[in-house]
């Protein structure tokens, strides 16, 4: 069933959004200050980890965007969110409210909620 595929894709996307977002926050708010202070180890290692996680995030976000038939703008926002601190969390909430919930509930009342 289509719904099952969407549910799985949503789960994968969410996990990666939160993991990537958390690592990026560590990188930007711990790693970079330490690097400026002369201890680049954290920034280097976490930077590489974020790079790898972001690739996985890209794949899952892209697949979800195809399943939900998103237009270009939300797709681009979704994909780039993984590179901006805190944005993954905000975008994940927005995508959930605006696209995922209407797609999964699939009944008329949620169509009203979409407009909010």
């Amino acid at each position, binding site marked *: *069933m289509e719904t099952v595929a969407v549910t799985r894709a949503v789960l994968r996307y969410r996990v990666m959004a939160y993991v990537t977002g958390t690592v990026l926050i560590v990188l930007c708010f711990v790693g970079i200050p330490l690097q400026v202070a002369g201890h680049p180890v954290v920034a280097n290692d976490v*930077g590489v980890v974020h790079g790898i996680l972001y690739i996985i995030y890209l794949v899952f976000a892209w697949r979800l965007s195809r*399943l939900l*038939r998103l237009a270009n*703008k939300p797709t681009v926002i979704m994909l780039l969110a993984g590179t901006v601190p805190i944005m993954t969390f905000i975008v994940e909430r927005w995508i959930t409210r605006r696209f995922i919930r209407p797609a999964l509930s699939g*009944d*008329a*009342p949620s*169509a009203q909620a979409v407009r909010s």
Partner: protein
Amino acid sequence: MENAASADSAVPAGDAVPAPGAAQDGPAWRFLIQPRWLAWHLLMVVSFWGMLWLGDWQLHRALTGNGLSWAYTFEWPLFAGFAVVFWARTIRDEFRLKRGDVTPSSDADPNRFADLPARIAGVRAVQAGTAEPADDEDEELTAYNAYLARLNAEVKRHGRWHGLG
């Protein structure tokens, strides 16, 4: 984005957003040379080569002893490839939209809620069984129709601002 109806009426007749199933005048690929699509192509070319260049730069850094750069050496070409895939998908989707090719087999919108009619039908069956007044059913039907209209508007809009990136 929310006022689909007014946005629709603002579109001049003959705009490049045909109704689903409508035949297109002229060659189907003509939208590719519209200004917004040219801007889209340009953006993709620039970002593609930009990312390859970044990968090359990281490769040089890696070769001169910066071990950290090896990861980025492979990442940037990957991102460049992703940009190409994304660009190709937008063009393919646009062609499908132009052809009005939204058959269930093309995993387009109708398929996305394949279980919806069954659910609505189930609700109606329950209502009929309990002999509810017709009001409820009408409300349900109206809401469902509004929902379908919104989906349709969304699909149309999808094609309209493809080039904005």
